[in-house]
Each structure stands twice: as C-alpha cells, then as structure tokens.
C-alpha cells in the first residue's frame, strides 16, 4: 500500500506522460506556423504535409518517379490521355475512403498554387472520375512532365486531401487537417512555436517496396512523433541531443559538425544525395544588371569555392557545381557554364571594363539573422569590388529582405540589385521547377524578373517533349542560354547535415526531411 501511495505521489508530482509510448523527438530546422502546405511554399509546411498526407507519386532516391497512392496507370499513344487507378486500402484519418473525386479536387487546388502544377494545368483539358478508384487526365497536347509534376517531391507537393477540404478557395488556409498519410496530426496538442505532435496512423497500409526518397513503404515504428518547435538555438539543440532530451536535429549547424562526429552517442546519418544550391540573383529590371554583359562579368567574378569556404567551411559538406540544375540529378550538367567555371578575376575585370558599366553602386541585400546564408553577401561584395564594381552592402533581417525583393522599384526608391539565397535541390532540378528559368520579364513569377524570349521558347519545347534523351538535350540548351544571358549565378552546393542519437535506426535516402521507417531502440 505504501509503495502504491508513493508511486501515486511520484506520478502526481513528477508527472508521467506517454511513458509506454515510443516517442521520436525531433528538432526541425525551423518553426511550423502554417499547417497548409499548398498555401505556402515554406519547407516546414511541406514537411508537415508529408507527415499527414499521401501523394499519388513520389520521387525515389535516384530521382525516378514511382507510384505511391497509384496502383497502375496508362498513357495513350498520343500522350494526351492518362488513366490512373488508385491502390486499395487508402483511407483518410476520419475513416472515409480516398476516392478519385478527392484526388481530382486536390490536383485542381494544387494546380492553382504551385508553379509546376500551374504549368501542368495549361496542358490539361479536363479531368474526370469514371469510378471511385479511377481518374483520368485529358490533355490538350502532349506534355513531357505529367508524372514529374504529380510526383514532385518539394514545395508545393500535390498532397491528396478530402474533397471537402480541397474544394475551398486555394488562397484561403484550411483548418481541417485530415489526410491519409502515415501520421495523424494531433491538433489539440499543437502549440505554435512550442510543439507539434503526430500519432502513428495504425490504419495506414504501406506499400510493399522498400522506402526510397518519397516513395516505397511508409512504415511507422514509433507511436508518436514530437517536433520541438521551441528549441531553436543551435548550441542548445546540440546540448539537448548530447543529453538525450531530443533524438534528431534536422539541421545541424556546420560549426557543430566535427564535434558531433566525435561524440560516441551521436550519429550523422546520410539521408540525402541531392544537395542544396546557393545562388546569387540579379534584378534584371534596373541598372546595372539590365545589361547582360554586366551580369556576365559578375558570373566570371563569382568563384564558387570562395562562397562555399566562407559559408560552409567543412570540406566534406560542399562541392562546386557548374550546373544551374542540381548536380547529380537528371538534368545536372556543365553545359554552357564556362563563363563562370573557367573564369578568373582578371577576366572578370576585363569583362567589367568591356561591359560599359557606369559605376552605378550595386545594392546587395544581406540578411543578418539567417546563419545558413548570411556570409554569402560579404563574399559577393568583396568579389564585386575586386572586379571593379561599386557595392552598397545593406544589412537587414531576412524578413525585410523577403519583403523588399518583391519590389520592382529602382534602388533609390527602395529597390535592390542582388540577393543571395539557397535552394533545396529538388526545387531547381529541372527547367520547369527552377523559377529563374521563367524569363517572362515582369510577368514572370520569381523576383529578379529576367526576360528572354529564346529561353522561354526552349522551355516551352521542353514542356512538350516526351522523349527523355531529347529532354536532356533541351535542358542543356536551356542552361547554356541561361548562362549566356546571366539569369543568376550558381554558387555551389552543400549538404545539410542531420544529427541523431545512436539508438535511432532506419534512416534511408529521403532527399528531404521525412520521418517514417525510423526505429527507436
């Protein structure tokens, strides 16, 4: 009896929660604020989406598109009619079956928000649902990226939602987080800036194949996953991992990489073969970067190694990459890159003189609060000065930069000339996904507003090409043209290390932040 009282008292005082559950405690790379992954392109929302939603197709570790919710599909000989059959056992978290109507509504909503989805929808004549497990896409003309779009692994991912959710205005956020994915979102335990909780979806039927990228069996071996959204100080994250208070740090700071490698309780799992890429983006609307010769001079001056050494610093985590499409993916190639990869500062200085640069100061925006890219602008400013440019390096927080880069005004009215950023590999790996290849000038979607009709025509050809070899050739031509006109400057690639306790197993090549197949011993 005394023991029982003592146990009860201990429980009351110290609290025992989820003691019997296997809880995977993860520190994500950022805060989770927006729970609707179609509304925003934020990676945290995308990762949340992968927890609770499922996809029709996925991209495996070798960047091949593989079926996920789809069991089988056919393509008509003229490539204009696609018929998809859903696999059996698909069920939403509320117990209702996933039907082809849910799929069509979800694709329509996604097609109104995502760049690649919008591009696909320009080809789509209509979609229909001949039966509950079958849907068809009728195209006006052959489209060379139908499956790539449906299986795209990064923002915005075409997640499948219930029709009632997908039918709402695509520019409004949702408050119904029912999916059919391997985890169920615990809405009542979600505290923005504190924690997000996911429970194992015991009714989820995984595919039989081994997990690979965003494809294969999404097996869940823990009862509960907790994202620690409050733990954002890099040193505090490492302290918590060392002490075993968390299991995984999604984005280990480069400064802590060597230390973590030496710690006997910590592992650095390999989870990605697709790197992130840094880039410098020009504002094509205003002087001096309205002149392609000036842009070429900058390309010649920007030696990737100097950016990588300053920003990453750990040799095994970075590599130079002469491609605008992520190296190691199907369209990664050095085509047309000589202007940057075979240049030096002398050549850059000569190009600046020959370009007719009139001494206009270049406004480079530097985010002071984003450790992952904050050193890049300093390197850029130094190299630009060495090449003969005048530079106005302006420090600001990232959110100010994000607001300011959307401005099309000249620099004396609050505009800008250059900013530097990083992309996850799958967001820039082909000419459709890569936003810098949209060269419609001010009509183009992404900041910088490059204009080039020849590149646009090549891109349109790429969209219509269904032969893979020809697509590859077209991608090379597109990239060569992009280097020729200087859409932007690729600044090399890096791998973002993840750190985990040694008792966590089951890591595989996800090329993203995905948390199925993991075991906690």
């Amino acid at each position: 009896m005394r023991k029982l009282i003592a146990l009860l008292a201990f429980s009351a005082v110290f609290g025992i929660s989820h003691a019997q559950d296997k809880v995977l405690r993860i520190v994500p790379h950022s805060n989770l604020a927006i729970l609707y992954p179609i509304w925003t392109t934020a990676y945290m929302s995308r990762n949340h989406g992968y927890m609770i939603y499922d996809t029709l197709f996925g991209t495996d570790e070798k960047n091949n598109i593989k079926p996920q919710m789809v069991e089988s599909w056919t393509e008509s000989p003229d490539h204009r009619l696609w018929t998809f059959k859903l696999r059996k056992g698909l069920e939403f978290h509320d117990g209702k079956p996933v039907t082809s109507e849910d799929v069509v509504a979800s694709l329509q909503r996604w097609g109104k928000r995502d760049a690649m989805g919008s591009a696909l929808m320009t080809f789509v004549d209509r979609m229909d649902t001949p039966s509950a497990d079958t849907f068809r896409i009728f195209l006006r003309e052959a489209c060379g990226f139908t499956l790539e779009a449906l299986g795209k692994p990064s923002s915005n991912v075409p997640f499948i939602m219930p029709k009632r959710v997908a039918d709402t205005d695509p520019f409004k956020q949702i408050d119904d987080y029912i999916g059919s994915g391997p985890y169920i979102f615990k809405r009542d335990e979600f505290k923005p800036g504190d924690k997000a909780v996911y429970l194992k979806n015991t009714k989820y039927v995984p595919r039989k194949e081994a997990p690979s990228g965003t494809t294969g069996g999404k097996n869940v071996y823990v009862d509960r996953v907790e994202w620690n959204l409050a733990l954002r100080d890099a040193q505090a994250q490492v302290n918590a991992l060392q002490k075993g208070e968390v299991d995984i740090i999604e984005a280990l700071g480069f400064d802590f990489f060597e230390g973590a490698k030496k710690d006997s309780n910590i592992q650095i799992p390999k989870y990605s073969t697709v790197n992130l890429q840094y880039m410098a983006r020009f504002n094509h609307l205003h002087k001096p970067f309205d002149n392609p010769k000036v842009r070429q001079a900058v390309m010649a001056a920007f030696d990737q190694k100097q950016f990588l050494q300053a920003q990453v610093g750990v040799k095994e985590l970075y590599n130079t990459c002469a491609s605008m499409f992520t190296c190691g993916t199907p369209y990664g190639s050095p085509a047309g890159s000589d202007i940057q990869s075979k240049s030096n500062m002398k050549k850059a200085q000569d190009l600046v003189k020959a370009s007719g640069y009139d001494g206009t100061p270049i406004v480079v925006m530097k985010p002071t609060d984003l450790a992952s890219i904050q050193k890049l602008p300093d390197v850029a400013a130094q190299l630009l000065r060495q090449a003969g440019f005048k530079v106005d390096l302006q420090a600001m927080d990232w959110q100010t930069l994000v607001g300011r880069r959307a401005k099309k005004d000249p620099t004396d009215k609050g505009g800008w000339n250059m900013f530097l950023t990083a992309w996850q590999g799958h967001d820039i790996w082909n000419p459709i996904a890569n936003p810098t290849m949209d060269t419609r000038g001010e009509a183009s979607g992404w900041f910088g507003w490059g204009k080039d009709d020849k590149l646009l025509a090549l891109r349109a050809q790429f969209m219509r090409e269904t032969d893979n070899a020809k697509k590859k050739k077209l991608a090379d031509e597109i990239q060569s043209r992009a280097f020729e006109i200087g859409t932007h400057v690729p600044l090399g690639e890096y791998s973002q290390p993840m750190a985990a306790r040694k008792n966590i197993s089951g890591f595989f090549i996800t090329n993203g932040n995905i948390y199925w197949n993991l075991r906690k011993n």
Partner: protein
Amino acid sequence: MFSFVARRILATVPVLLIVAVLVFLLLRLTPGDPAAILAGDAANTEQIARIREGLGLDRPILVQFGIWFGNLLQGNLGESFYYKTQVATLIGQRLEPTLSLAVLTICLAVMVAVPLGILAAWRFGGWLDRALMGFSVLGFSIPVFVLAYILIWLVSLKLGWLPVQGYQRIADGVGLWLYHLALPSITLSVLYIALIARVTRASVMEALGEDYIRTARAKGLPELRVLIHHGLANAAIPIVTVIGIGIALLIGGVVVTESVYAIPGLGRLTVDAVLARDFPTVQGLILFFSFVYVLVNLLVDLSYVILDPRIRY
C-alpha cells in the same frame, strides 16, 4: 483609496490608447511584408499579392486601423497573420511559462537578495558587504546567455542534475515543472539578486542611520528585531518598487533566456511575431505588456499604503 484606484484605472485608458496608435503606426513603417513572408521563398509576386489582399493589407492604413481598433474595443485582439490563431489564445498559451519563470525568478531573487542586502547594510564595510558588492558587479556584468551556457555545461551536461531545455506545465506535475524551470530561474535570478540586494543594502543602510533606530537600540531591543521591524520595514518602499519593476520586466519578455532554454514564453512569441511581421500579434503583445506595466505599478503604489501608514491616497 477607492477613488485613487478608480482614477489610476481610468488613467490607463489614454496610456493604452497612445500605445495602440503608436504600435500600429510603427509596425506599418517597418520594412518587410507579412504576405511575402507567409507565401514562402518560392512564391511568386502574384501569390504574394493575393495573400496581401486576403490579409487586408492592401487597404488604406486608416481603414486597417479602424477595423483593428473596432475589434479592440470589443475586446478582440485579432487573429495572428502567421499562426491563424486568435492573438488572445496565443498570449494565453504563452503566459504560463513566462509567468512561471517570472514568479520563480523573483521569489528566488527576493529570498536570497533581501537577507543578503540587510546583512551587508548591517555589516557595512565588512567582508560580507564587500563580497556582496563584488557579486553585484558580476551579476550586472555577466550576460545572461553566457551564464546560461556555463550553468548548462556544468549543471546539466557535466553533473546531469537538471535538463538542458524545455518547459513542463504545472498541470503535468509540480516537481516536473520545478525540475525544468530551476536552471532558467537561477540564471535569470543572478541579475535580480544583484539589483535587489544593492537596493536593499542602500535602503536599509539609510534607515539604520535614523534616530528611531538609535532609540530602538537604546530601548534594548534585540538587534534582529531592530533590523527587521525598524530597519527593513522603513526601507521597504524602494525594495518593493524594484521588485515590481523586475516582475514587469520579466513578464515583458526574457527573450534570451527563453531562447537558450527553449521555453515557449511571451518573449519568444514577441520575437517570432516581430520577425514574421505578424502585426496583430505584435500589437496585442505590446498592449498586453503595457497593461501589465500599468497594473504592476498600480499594485506597487497600493502596497505603499500597507508599508507606510503615513501614505494616504
């Protein structure tokens, strides 16, 4: 007394009104676009414009102010742009950690600082006084995050006594709550111990020089009684004032401590809201902090009546 309280409460209205107008205008003058932040890195200009429209940010500032102020008059602080949650709910969620940290820190600081201050004043110029003054300089000088990292390294990582990070609600168990808050409270209390001890020492020293202390000693009262009943009681007003300011400052946000120890409190919420240009949340928080300042000041003023019977309102 009642009319004093009523007047003070009424006086808060124009204060909060001015704060509301200033915060609203300042936020609109700050560079940065909430819509661009919400849309994400790969969003295009059209998507950003649609989001801006959805948030009502494309409307004239006066119209935006009118809508916000109208809601405010009905007790509605609005909805967070960033979290799509009512600002009052967000503040409610974050209040407990911050309040817990503030109360624990102040309790710890008062329990340590007041006796130390009295002793230092009693033994003015002695080793204890000098040691306390030295500690005060250290307490004021050492940055909170440096102290936090030192304590984490020693207490958590080397000795393994306390957790490195995190917060547990009181509802999950008082022990667990204390277990998680001990280190952050100790870290924060160092500064407040230094501050309160110095003020206590100075006030008690001044009181000990008064005629009534000499009279009390001449009457043969025990020294402890002289110190507490006559010395401390007459020195209490500046001490209580400092404690009040300390509580207000602590509730107003201990950003660094909350960040280092991963405590999801109001300080962290404020930083996140400012960085995300989450106007309704920042406005709500600043108004809340202003209200707390006014309330704490009112309570401090009222406590003067108890501490000094000569004071009448």
